[in-house]
Structure formats: C-alpha cells, structure tokens
C-alpha cells in the first residue's frame, strides 16, 4: 500500500530548520545555497517517502538523505566549498572579538580534523543531536558513539592546548 504523502508535511515542519542548519554550517553560511539544498532534500525525501520504514526514525533518514545530497553537491558540477567559510559564520555571531577569536580557532581545528571526528563533533554541537540520535544516524551503538565523542573532544582539546 502506498504511503500517504500528506503524512510527510509534519515531518517537514519538524526538521526543516535542522536540515537548513546542517547545510548552512557545511556550506560556509551560504544561505541561498543552503535553502536550495534544503528544498532539494525534502523534495527527494517526499518522492521516496513510500520507501521510508516508519519503524525507524525519520530524523536518521532525512539526515542520511541530506548527507548524501551534500556529498553529491560537492562532487557534481565542480561545486566548491566557499573558500572562507569561517569568516562567513563568524559574521553571523554576535559575540565579543575575543570570543569570536576563540570560536574561530575551534572551528578551524574541527575543519582540519579527520572526517569521523569532524562529523561527530558537528552532529553533537551544530546539529544538536544526542548520542542516541547520532548512533541511529551512523547505524552504530550508542556506547560506541559515546566513546568516539569522548575521543574526538579529547583530540580537540589537545590540539587547542598545544596551539
């Protein structure tokens, strides 16, 4: 039986801002591009809504689509990541110069970390996902995520203290 697409709209309402933020921080705060990709992701999700297994979490499913879409975006048509993403992000943050400096340092280090550490930290602090949600998303055990998170944050602290 085909799933009623009308049931998709509450999901859109719930996750639109999260997916928008997901793209915003990964595309150097390019708002129009983040909006376009958000739109494309939800349309793609709606078209495939019949395949969505409702016994699983919608959040994991939509983030997976967003992630794949972002990867395709980088790959296809030579779309480049903005050259100075941090400056864009910092211009949106209403903080003191000192705080901005500290944040810039942190973000630069995160950007330079390997993909596993980088993504897990982004999921936790930018997308505000819990360990359980990250575990769902990455199809791992929650304990494994907790361990990985601890390791990644230790690495981050270590780099910060050494610089």
């Amino acid at each position: 039986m085909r799933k009623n697409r009308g049931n998709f709209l509450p999901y859109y309402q719930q996750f639109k801002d999260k997916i928008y933020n997901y793209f915003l921080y990964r595309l150097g705060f390019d708002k129009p591009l983040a909006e376009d990709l958000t739109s494309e992701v939800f349309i793609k999700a709606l078209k495939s809504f019949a395949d969505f297994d409702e016994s699983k979490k919608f959040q994991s499913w939509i983030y997976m689509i967003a992630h794949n879409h972002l990867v395709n975006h980088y790959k296809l048509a030579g779309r480049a990541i903005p050259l100075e993403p941090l400056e864009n992000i910092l211009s949106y943050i209403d903080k003191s110069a000192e705080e901005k400096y500290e944040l810039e340092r942190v973000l630069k280090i995160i950007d330079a970390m390997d993909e596993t550490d980088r993504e897990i930290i982004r999921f936790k602090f930018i997308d505000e996902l819990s360990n359980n949600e990250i575990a769902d998303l990455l199809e791992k055990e929650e304990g494994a995520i907790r361990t990985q998170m601890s390791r990644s944050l230790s690495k981050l602290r270590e780099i910060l203290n050494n610089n």
Partner: protein
Amino acid sequence: MNNPEKLLATLPKNKLGRKADLKIKFQLYRLIWLQRFAGIFDFSRGQLLNLNRGWALAIIVVIALGSTSIYAYASNDVLPGNQLYPLKIVLEKIEQNIAIDKTAKIANLEKVSSRRLREAVELSQKNSDSDKTKGAINEKIKNSIAIEVSNHEKVSDHIKNLSNDNEIKSSIEKAKKNDEREINYLNKIAEYAQENNDQEILDKANNAKEIIIKQEYKHKEGRMNKEATTTEEVTPSSDKEDQSFEPDKNETSTPFRQGDRERERQEKKEDR
C-alpha cells in the same frame, strides 16, 4: 582552552527563511496533490478504490450528480410525476435567476412555457385506464397550461420594458416562433380534451391560445406603432404597414391560427 564544548554550544542556530519555507511548502503540496490525482486515475495499479477511496468516491458522486442533473434538465422523458422532475424545476429556476439580462430572461421564460406544454401533450398521450391516474394527469395538464399563461404575461412585460430596438425586434421574432410552437401544443391538448370530454381543459387550452394571439398582436402592434412614428417623422403622409411583421404563410399553417388571423384582419379594417 579546556572547555571547547561550552564555546561550541553558543554557535547560532538559524531558522529557514519564511520565503524559502513557503517555496518549499508549495513544491511539497504540489507533489502531494499530483500524487493524489495520479492515484485516482491509476486504474492499472488498482488504486482507485484501495488508496484514494475518499477522492474516488467524491468524484463519482460529483459525476453522478452532474449527469443526473443534466439528464433531469435535458431529457424529455422527465415528466411531472417523475422522481427527477423537482430537480428539473429547480434547475430551471436557477437558470432563470442567473439570466444575465432581460433578453435572456425572456428566452428562458419562453423555453419553460413551451416545455410545460410539451410535457402536457406527452402526458395527454399516456394511456391510462385508471380514473385516479387520469385525474392526476389532467391536473398536471391544467397546471402546465397555467404556467404557460403566466410565463407569457411575463414575457410580454419584459418585452415592453426593452429599450433597444434590436433587442425588441429579436425578442418579438423569437416570441412569435415560440407562440407558433405553443399553439400547436395547445391544439393537441384541445384535441385530447375533446376526446375525453374534459370541458375544463378545453376551455383552459382555448383561453391560453387567445392570450397568445392577443399577445402576438400586442407585440406586433407595439412594433408597428414604433415603426409608424419613425416613418411619420420622415414621411408624414405614409400609412404603410410594417410588412416585416406580417405573418408568413408557414406561420399560419394551423387551422386555428388561420381563423384568428382572418378575424384579426377584419378587426383592423373595422378600426380604420
């Protein structure tokens, strides 16, 4: 720095702009509606009754009601006594109420009065041995004649109130054609009344014919007066009749009509 988590927690969380949100919602709604309509007409996948039952049912009901209404309105088989007859009358009233101007109202009234007489003729041709049924049919015939008379008066009033010459001429021409048709129906009803010795129906039919003849005369007279006034302004001595409104031979083909036209001519000569 020992606590980068605290700093990261202060990163701004942005919301999707209203314009972008509306744009996405529009695209999503469009896709949803497309799927719904595709589902309704996707007979090959058995979607009609399984998945979009509500929609399919609504469409079937609309089609059924629409086709029933069209049938009730247009069919000659829907006569007084038929279950769909009240629907036919309602639709006629709606049509009358939404008529955009007087000429449309006139045309509609004529159509309805002609239709009632045709129904009366069809009822009169129904064979019935039962006195009760016959009585009911006769009542419906009388009612149809009454409606015809009433509508005729309304048509006459509307024509009087028309100000545009072309509209007057066109309406009178149409009224004349309709009158001819109605007189044919009334003749058939009169025949039926004579066969069944129903004096009341015969009187009503004859009375209706009289009204039609007088009405036609009034139309013609009104028009002739108008023409005469115009002609006098140009050639005061002219006493020509308006030849364009003289009945042609086809119009006077029924015996009843021929007699009346003779009487009419004699009346006119006496007036002069």
